[in-house]
């Protein structure tokens, strides 16, 4: 068991070394585009559009994605997704939860459970929601309901932070 894990890590380590070796300036130049797909169930904000950079909040930390980013998958934490567009403007969106996948061909999929442009958020409503969620945390009978209420409270907190 232990040896199996060790080999796996070794392969993984080797895999990274190979990847790092292949990422030099000459190779990065032709792949200098980042194709972003960013959608919520009701609306697609970007559909395979070329952008400069995307900053995303994830449970393993916030990170920025540039062209030729190492492939990864991550889970969105409530927070602000910032898109730096080709013409230099930045657009900010709030995302509640969802998935991020960065593929080897420099395509990025950000699929949020709920997302909206930052200026559509209502801080007042979020504060009310936070109060309600906090009440539910204290009054929750089961662990599951408690976790759900905590997740909701966390999301509201981030909305309030984002609107300030």
């Amino acid at each position, binding site marked *: 068991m232990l040896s199996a894990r060790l080999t796996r890590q070794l392969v993984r380590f080797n*895999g990274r070394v190979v990847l790092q070796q292949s990422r030099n300036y000459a190779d990065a130049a032709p792949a200098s585009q980042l194709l972003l797909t960013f959608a919520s169930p009701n609306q697609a904000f970007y559909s395979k559009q070329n952008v400069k950079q995307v900053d995303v909040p994830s449970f393993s930390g916030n990170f920025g994605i540039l062209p030729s980013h*190492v492939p*990864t*998958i991550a*889970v969105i934490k409530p927070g602000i997704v910032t898109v730096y567009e080709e013409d230099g403007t930045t657009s900010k969106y709030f995302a509640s*939860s969802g*998935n991020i*996948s960065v*593929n080897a061909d420099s*395509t990025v999929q950000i699929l949020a459970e709920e997302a909206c442009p930052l200026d559509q958020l209502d801080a007042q409503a979020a504060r009310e929601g936070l109060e309600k969620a906090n009440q539910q945390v204290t009054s929750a009978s089961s662990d599951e309901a408690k976790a759900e209420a905590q997740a909701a409270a966390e999301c509201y907190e981030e909305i309030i932070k984002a609107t300030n």
Partner: protein
Amino acid sequence: MATLKDVALRLRSVKNIQKITKSMKMVSAAKFARAERDLKSARSYGEGAAALYKSMELDSEEKKPNHMMIALCSDRGLCGAVHSSICRTIKADLAEAPESNTKLILVGDKARAQLQRLHRSRFLLVFTDYGRKPPQFIEAAHIAREILNNDFQFETADLLYNKFRSVISYETIKEPLRSVDVIANSEKILSYDDVDHEVVRSYQEFALANSIYAAMKDGAASEQSARMTAMDNASKNAGEMIDSLTLTYNRTRQAVITRELIEIISGAAALE
């Protein structure tokens, strides 16, 4: 020979049916317009998970023993072969391997009605009361949650739905889904940075809901477009029937008048 009254009754009922099919066509045309608008954003939603599977090269066709098939139909009929083409695909697949441990997850009454005679023992979950309104993400999330909470641990799964191509055509698609273990044990995952099992699990659970949601939207658009075509055909056929019945009605009416005239004239002649 039908009497004049019989023909008139029949003509009236066919006219009523044509009114109904015509208005059903209008309703589904309106619903279709909305479904097609929604489809655009939902498509990019569904492509996310598919892109990952593709770049991980998980396209293997082989089926594991614990296979699962998810059929996305709806409660409502009168829409051509939309539901039966899905059920036919399932039946064909099951007929190939009758001994396999394949389980079925059915969404919509129509799928259940078509499959329950032959494959009742394979039913794992059946969702009804679906298809009246445009699909919502919460419905997809509910189905995904029920699948994940079920005792049956699937290794491979197929999602069957109708992919919308144009107003007059759709394609029945079998989209493969992967379980957490299959993703976590794939060779390509090693080239992905900073991925632990918990991330893969959350990712896969959400991706399942995503795929179901996108498939639901595609299925809804195909269903409405198929219903539109079916109702258009029905109205046309009713129109043909009305034409021929009107002809018969007029002929019969003319015959009745002629007969009455003959009776009156010959009666008068007999009295002279």
